[in-house]
């Protein structure tokens, strides 16, 4: 092989490597126990749940990424008739609202989230993943299974839940949906708390979508994830007591 050929291949792989680190991914969510299909949602489902499920089916979540940072947020809802209460219920079912900021260099994940009239910037807890050898083919990507235990402390008590992520080492970026990441590949599917969040499409070198940064002018209260959960629990307890 000549020096010219070697140089060409080096340049080719370098270029591919750079382009693969920049892009956008769209995720959708569905319930494990119910799902909307072409024939719609079964008639025996309560009207309020039906509205929430129909609304959830219109929601898409966008992850924009480069080799250093990523942001994740809900794309503006396609449902223009979304009432505030259905919106709030859907956010609760979806297990997510706000915007996530990933920084792979510092390994910090921040969650900007409005709650009770206050704009919080929450530092997410680091996730301790257990990597397994289980595999799953998702579209063209061979994914590996990773799992972790998440504890939800709510008004009713302490709940220990397992989160399962399927990540693709072929897409070597440590991001994923809902603030989950830190794995040796993009999370293509997340199974957590009755919801499956799946990759709908991914584009590399997408110049239309750029990673956004935290707006420094926004007045935010900086808290840890545990502090935020404590604030939310105290606020919720006020209406329950």
């Amino acid at each position, binding site marked *: 092989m000549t020096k010219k050929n070697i140089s060409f291949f080096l340049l080719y792989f370098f270029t591919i490597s750079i382009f693969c680190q920049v892009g956008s991914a769209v995720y959708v969510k569905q*319930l*494990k*126990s*119910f799902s909307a299909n072409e024939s719609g949602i079964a008639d025996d*489902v*309560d009207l*309020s*749940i039906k509205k929430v499920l129909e609304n959830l089916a219109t929601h898409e979540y966008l992850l924009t990424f480069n080799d250093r940072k990523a942001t994740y947020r809900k794309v503006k809802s396609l449902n223009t008739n979304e*009432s*505030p*209460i259905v*919106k*709030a*219920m859907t*956010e*609760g*079912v979806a*297990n997510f*609202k706000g915007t996530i900021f990933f920084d792979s260099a510092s390994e910090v994940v921040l969650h900007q*989230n*409005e*709650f*009770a*009239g*206050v704009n919080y910037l929450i530092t997410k807890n680091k996730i301790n993943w257990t990597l397994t050898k289980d595999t799953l083919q998702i579209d063209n990507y061979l994914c590996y299974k990773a799992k972790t235990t998440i504890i*939800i402390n*709510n*008004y009713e008590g302490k*709940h220990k*839940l397992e989160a399962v992520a399927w990540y693709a080492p072929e897409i070597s970026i440590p991001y994923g949906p809902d603030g989950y990441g830190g794995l040796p590949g993009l999370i293509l599917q997340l199974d957590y*708390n*009755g*919801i499956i969040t799946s990759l709908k499409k991914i584009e590399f070198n997408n110049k239309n979508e750029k990673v956004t940064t935290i707006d420094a002018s926004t007045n935010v209260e900086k808290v840890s994830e545990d502090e*935020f*959960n404590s604030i*939310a*629990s105290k*606020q*919720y*307890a*006020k*209406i329950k007591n």
Partner: protein
Amino acid sequence: MAVVLFMSSSFVLNANTQNEDIISASCFDIAAAAEQSYMNDMATRLRIIPSDAAAYGVFAAAYDGCTGAGGY
């Protein structure tokens, strides 16, 4: 959306001359009922453990919707 709620709940039961019961509830009661219904659905139908923040969000949205519609 968010409101900080410290108002006490009130629940008034009236009956008119035609023997029809008219129930009027405060926005707090309506929001609390919406939130409780949501919590029940989450637990029994959807198998989801809701966070306190999500439950509060439903309460606040229902309360704001009620007051926005002229409730008290």
